Structure formats: structure tokens, C-alpha cells
């Protein structure tokens, strides 16, 4: 089945130790998104790629970066995780960037910072 896959599902890292979360898709969609979701809160968009064009949200901390080496893969890098970065990280894709296109979500990676 075509889908959005996130690895790992659970990640524990130490305060200040860089961590990379992975997302892959078999949908061949042009757009890939990364969201941060804290407990009992709405998912918050961090950034997205339209093909190779990177779009960063204005309030996304510099600590968060992303790479999209090809259509299928997108990575979220947290350079120096703080305790406040503990959250669920969701990857999503959509065929195009227009408002009428549904986003397809992966299962998420739950990040714990110790």
C-alpha cells in the first residue's frame, strides 16, 4: 500500500545530542511537511518542501533543520534538542501545494529528551 512511513516510531535522545528523524513516502507526492505536536495541542507546521524548494515557518527555531535528498525521503534534524523539544513529530505529504489537496500523514515519531 502507498503510504507515509516514519522511523523510528519512538526516539530517546539526551539533552543537546543531535537527533535525526526520518520520513519516506511511496505516494510520489511533490510536497512533504514536518509538524510538531505537543500533548493536547494542535499539530504545528515547522516547514515544508515543494519538490526541492524549502519553506521554513517564521517561528520555527533555528535548532530545527530539514533535508530532502530525493522525492521519497525527508529528514528532520534537531541540532541540540532541549527538554522543550519533546513532542510527537508528524510527517505529511500532499500531491500538490494547492489548498484543495489532502495531506497524508505518517504515524509520527515520539521524541523524548532526557
Amino acid at each position, binding site marked *: 500500500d502507498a503510504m507515509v512511513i516514519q522511523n523510528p516510531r519512538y526516539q530517546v535522545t539526551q539533552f543537546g545530542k543531535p537527533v535525526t528523524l526520518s520520513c519516506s513516502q511511496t505516494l510520489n507526492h511533490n510536497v512533504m*511537511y514536518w509538524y510538531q505536536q505537543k500533548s*493536547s495541542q*494542535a499539530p504545528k507546521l515547522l516547514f515544508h518542501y*515543494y519538490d526541492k524548494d524549502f*519553506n521554513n515557518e517564521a517561528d520555527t527555531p533555528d535548532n530545527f533543520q530539514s533535508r530532502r535528498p530525493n522525492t521519497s525521503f525527508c529528514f528532520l534534524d534537531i541540532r541540540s534538542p532541549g527538554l522543550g523539544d519533546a513532542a510527537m513529530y508528524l510527517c505529511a505529504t500532499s500531491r500538490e*501545494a494547492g*489548498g484543495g489537496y489532502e*495531506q497524508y500523514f505518517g504515524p509520527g515519531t515520539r521524541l523524548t529528551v532526557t
Partner: protein
Amino acid sequence: AQSVSQHNHHVILSEAASLELGCNYSYGGTVNLFWYVQYPGQHLQLLLKYFSGDPLVKGIKGFEAEFIKSKFSFNLRKPSVQWSDTAEYFCAVNRKFSGGYNKLIFGAGTRLAVHP
């Protein structure tokens, strides 16, 4: 501030009860509206969407939602809930921002628990 508001954070119902979850947004102009559902341990998935046309939208699993433009609302309804509807429900609005790209803005979610 522009936002998406879901009125109830937690809803508890018995099976066969009717459900209505409120969603209001504060954006003017053209918007596309969505309800996503997240079942326990699973990923967010689309329940239904409104782009244009008939303001009453039918979704999967017997859900429907009504877009009322004058009230900036997109409430989710189901006449008779089942235990399997226990999940978290997110309302979302997709709108165009400067720079030409679209952004999905989520509400905080409503956690629904249905008791047998």
C-alpha cells in the same frame, strides 16, 4: 489572531448517542476545510473535506459536516456513534499565505470517548 477553534476538548458519549463537534475559524476569504481523525495508536487520516458546492459534506463512517459561511463554522456530526468512533478529532483549515503556498491550520482537537 487567526485561528481554528474547537469548542470541546473532551466529549464522553454512550453508544447510539448523537454527536456534534464544533469548529470555528477566523479567516476571511476562500478556505478549504477538513476534519481529520486519529484513532488510538494510529496516524491522522482524513474524515471529510469541503472545498466548494453543497455545504453539507458526507464523509466516511457515517460522519457529515456542515459549512456555514456566515458563522465561520464547520461542525462535525454523526447521528449515532459507535464504540469504534473513540478517537481524537481535528478540524483544519487550509488557506493561502503570502508567498503563494497553502498552509493547514489545525484546531487543538477533541478527544471523544464512546462507552458501550
